[in-house]
């Protein structure tokens, strides 16, 4: 059992939350309907809140968010992928929120240092998951166009889903525990996808560069641009307080 927070683990989980919050923040003012402006911002705010707690466990939240280079970020490649259309964003939300809810559920049930944070976050992720599942159903069982778009989103992001189940350095979840989590994830995602009348993508869930790469600081091209936008103002005023 770990008694103190492992910084590597805090960074991995914190970066997932921060990067996805940043991506969801890009939707502000562009959502397809006013209710989704509210919902997507809600999810982004929850994730940002999680990120702030987690990064603060690893150091200074702003130094970590704004002054690290791309290769120092430990988030999954899945969360850094560009928003694409609404269906693509929902596919990303479905894959990630199911994973995050299962992972936080495990951490909340244990007695490790992340248990208190996970206990709060698991309630938030239950809402995120419900939101993603409801939209997967609506889009899958909506019109031909929505079905085509959500199917394309699920397919495009499929190869980033394997990385989620590599053991995270510093978490009390070994390869066996992560394999069990993966089986539950696959069952949950399959159930929603099938209920929506969609098909589970075929093909590998990792590629040559995606197998655990994000957790080791190896990212995809869109990530550098996202960081440049996120960090430029903070970096333009070294040492300033905001």
């Amino acid at each position, binding site marked *: 059992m770990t008694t103190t927070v492992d910084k590597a683990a805090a960074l991995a989980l914190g970066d997932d939350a921060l990067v996805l919050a940043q991506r969801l923040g890009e939707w502000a003012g*562009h959502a397809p309907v006013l209710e989704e402006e509210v919902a997507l911002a809600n999810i982004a705010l929850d994730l940002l809140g999680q990120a702030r707690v987690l990064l603060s466990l690893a150091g200074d939240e702003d130094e970590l968010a704004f002054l690290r280079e791309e290769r120092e970020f430990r988030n999954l490649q899945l969360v850094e992928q560009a928003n694409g259309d609404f269906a693509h964003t929902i596919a990303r939300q479905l894959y990630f929120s199911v994973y995050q809810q299962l992972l936080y559920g495990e951490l909340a049930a244990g007695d490790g240092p992340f248990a208190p944070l996970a206990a709060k976050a698991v309630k938030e992720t239950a809402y995120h998951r419900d939101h993603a599942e409801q939209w997967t*159903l609506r889009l899958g069982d909506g019109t031909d166009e929505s079905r085509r778009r959500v199917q394309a989103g699920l397919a495009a992001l499929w190869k980033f889903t394997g990385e989620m189940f590599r053991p995270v350095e510093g978490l009390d979840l070994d390869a066996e525990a992560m394999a069990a989590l993966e089986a539950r994830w696959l069952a949950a995602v399959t159930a929603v996808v099938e209920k929506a009348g969609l098909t589970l993508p075929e093909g590998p869930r990792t590629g040559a560069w995606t197998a655990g790469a994000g957790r080791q600081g190896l990212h995809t091209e869109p990530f550098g641009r996202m960081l440049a936008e996120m960090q430029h103002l903070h970096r333009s005023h070294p040492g300033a*307080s905001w």
Partner: protein
Amino acid sequence: MVAMTQDAAAGQAPDPALVAAFDAAVAADERVEPRDWMPAEYRASLVRQMAQHAHSEIIGMQPEANWITRAPSLRRKAILMAKVQDEAGHGLYLYSAAETLGTSRDELLDKLHAGKQKYSSIFNYPTLTWADVGAIGWLVDGAAITNQVPLCRCSYGPYARAMVRICKEESFHQRQGYELLLALSQGTEAQHAMAQDAVDRWWWPSLMMFGPPDDESAHSAQSMAWRIKRHSNDELRQRFVDIAVPQAEALGLTLPDPDLKWNEERGHHDFGTIDWSEFWEVLKGNGPCNEQRIGQRRRAHEEGAWVRDAAAEYARKHGEAKA
């Protein structure tokens, strides 16, 4: 109030008893509720004003959302995201309040997108630096609150009730904007300059938010009689200036008006002449961001059409209310 579910039939003069009851209720500061009889012109005037207000909330998300991805600290990012989310929420309350008058949100959005209904001209100015987020909070939200607090007592019940909730959130936003500017003003030289530049650019447009001078305001007199509006444009503008001047001093920032000074005799601040030609130009569509703002709104709506269609189709198949 006299309970009536329908307006007078088109072309017929309304029953004088209904008109008298309505006038008496308004004069007695009673609330008009959706099922009460009301003059067609009162209804139309409310729809126009509430629609413009709702549109302002959703267009107003854009200049601030412009900085969400670039906010310089995680705390500021969270505050800004929450604020922009609140604005979407205000849009929702206001469109819902307008629906009680028999006008759907879709109908109002179509009119906005077609340029047939307006939103506040202030959002046709750009947010060029981070300090603009603070200046919007302090000055633009400050002006909006000055305008909106009296609307909490507006004669139309659903609008008044929506405004109570909105004003609470707006005053929170205003304090956050002020606090953001204070941090900049007391920060590095570059941050202070950024704050001053933002105040210099937002001050005059904020004064224009109260609308044209009283003698040129198209809708004012009737709205006052109907107790939709309770104070004149110039009166509210003066109130705002009087509040803002000491706040600017506390911020350590100057307001860009050499004629601004305390008038002992009036008990108010005198201020310089507003450039109304700029106001009318922006209103006509020639502001810095008119096309950009309405363009983004139309695009988001058009690009989201397939999502709304999918939700409606799903709801139809599954016998749900429209999502």
